[in-house]
């Protein structure tokens, strides 16, 4: 079985370490906040200028001046700080954020990522994604392994306009957890019940399957 969006978020959360400042992108990455292990503390950065993003407010505490990067109303967590966009991107571009989780349309064996534009369709803009991939050392991309026709999104070369070049080394899909190194995807973990042959079939870029691939486990 391929992973659900929630299982993908849960698996990504295993990568978090105590004391990390973390930026979560829109979509599946946002769900990671629901699976932070109880025994660690992380602080969430929201690129519009909030370090220490808390949960959504109760109806009585909704404040139009208090939003996250997805323009949703949020609260500030205990110990939060609030600052300008300039300051926010100084943190991001200066490499101060420990861990970043982003969605993508495509990644390739060179560590390139395409996540912001599909030519011929509406262009909404890159927002902060190009800054995040250029500034972060530790990024994990969450995405579907293939489109609904079975076409791979893990490629030899991205076909869509790039968000960043040579910046991605970890990918979690609905089928597998992989690393990118030496111009290949290296299979590390499979989703429960997903065969290696299915992953091979749905990975267009070069794929290395080591002898110690493990199957993910969810309670």
């Amino acid at each position, binding site marked *: 079985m391929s992973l659900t969006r929630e299982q993908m978020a849960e698996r990504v959360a295993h990568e978090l370490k105590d004391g990390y400042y973390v930026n979560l992108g829109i979509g599946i990455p946002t769900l990671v906040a629901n699976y932070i292990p109880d025994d660690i503390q992380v602080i969430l950065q929201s690129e519009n200028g909030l370090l220490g993003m808390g949960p959504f407010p109760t109806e009585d505490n909704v404040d139009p001046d208090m939003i996250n990067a997805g*323009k949703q109303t949020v609260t500030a967590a205990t110990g939060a700080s609030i600052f300008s966009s300039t300051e926010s991107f100084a943190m991001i571009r200066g490499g101060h954020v420990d861990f970043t989780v982003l969605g993508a349309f495509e990644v390739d064996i060179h560590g390139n990522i395409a996540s912001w534009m599909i030519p011929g369709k509406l262009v909404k803009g890159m927002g902060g994604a190009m800054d995040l991939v250029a500034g972060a050392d530790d990024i994990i991309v969450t995405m579907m392994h293939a489109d609904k026709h079975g076409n791979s999104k893990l490629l030899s070369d991205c076909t869509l306009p790039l968000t960043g070049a040579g910046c991605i080394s970890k990918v979690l899909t609905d089928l597998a957890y992989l690393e990118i190194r030496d111009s290949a995807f290296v299979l590390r973990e499979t989703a429960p019940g997903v065969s290696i042959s299915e992953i091979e079939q749905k990975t267009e870029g070069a794929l290395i399957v080591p002898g110690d691939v493990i199957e993910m486990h969810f309670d």
Partner: protein
Amino acid sequence: MPGFDKVVDSYETALEGIADNMTIIVGGFGLCGIPQNLIEEVARRGTKNLTAVSNNCGVDRWGLGVLLKNKQISRAISSYVGENKEFERQYLEGELELMLTPQGTLAEKMRAGGAGIPAFYTATGYGTIVADGKDVREFNGKKYILEESITGDFALVHAKVADRYGNCIYNATAQNFNPAAATSGKITVVEAEEIVKPGSLDPAQIHTPGIYVQRVVQATAEKRIEFRTVTEA
């Protein structure tokens, strides 16, 4: 002599001198912290062929969406323009020029513009179409692209509190692009929810020092929410 008293009593005076073909730099992120009253004054004046520099371009009929609807903006410099059907239509029909700019680069373009720095190198956008035609240099083994700064004829800013000298404090995440925008306008106009006497604010808590601000006017517009998300009490 008004000295440093920058408060004006009407929106007409607040935007005196704004003219066709000018560049306006506008604070806000989504609908949060946008100078809605000042935008409405630009709409009332019918100023045309504007270059609007702002992270987003409002939504249909609110924020900069008001000026889009009136076809007053001919060029937009923004990082994200989703959530706006009129923008999409004008862009696809070639009525509007759009320069998509990474969000951090946009903020830095304003900051550097206001600080007298004409251009800067950044890793953001290297290897992408954002880098097309731009100078590339390597520093310490990493590639960077040269981005030019932005200044505006007018900067439009929304603050929670301003004193009469133009010292500003922003509220919560309504700060966002406002401080950078405030530094980068030849004429920076602040609409403030509350205007107080000089001396009322703690000098060490000022976000935007009054030196950047030319005019202050009372804000009255409602504050809208783009996505209202709540948890059960």
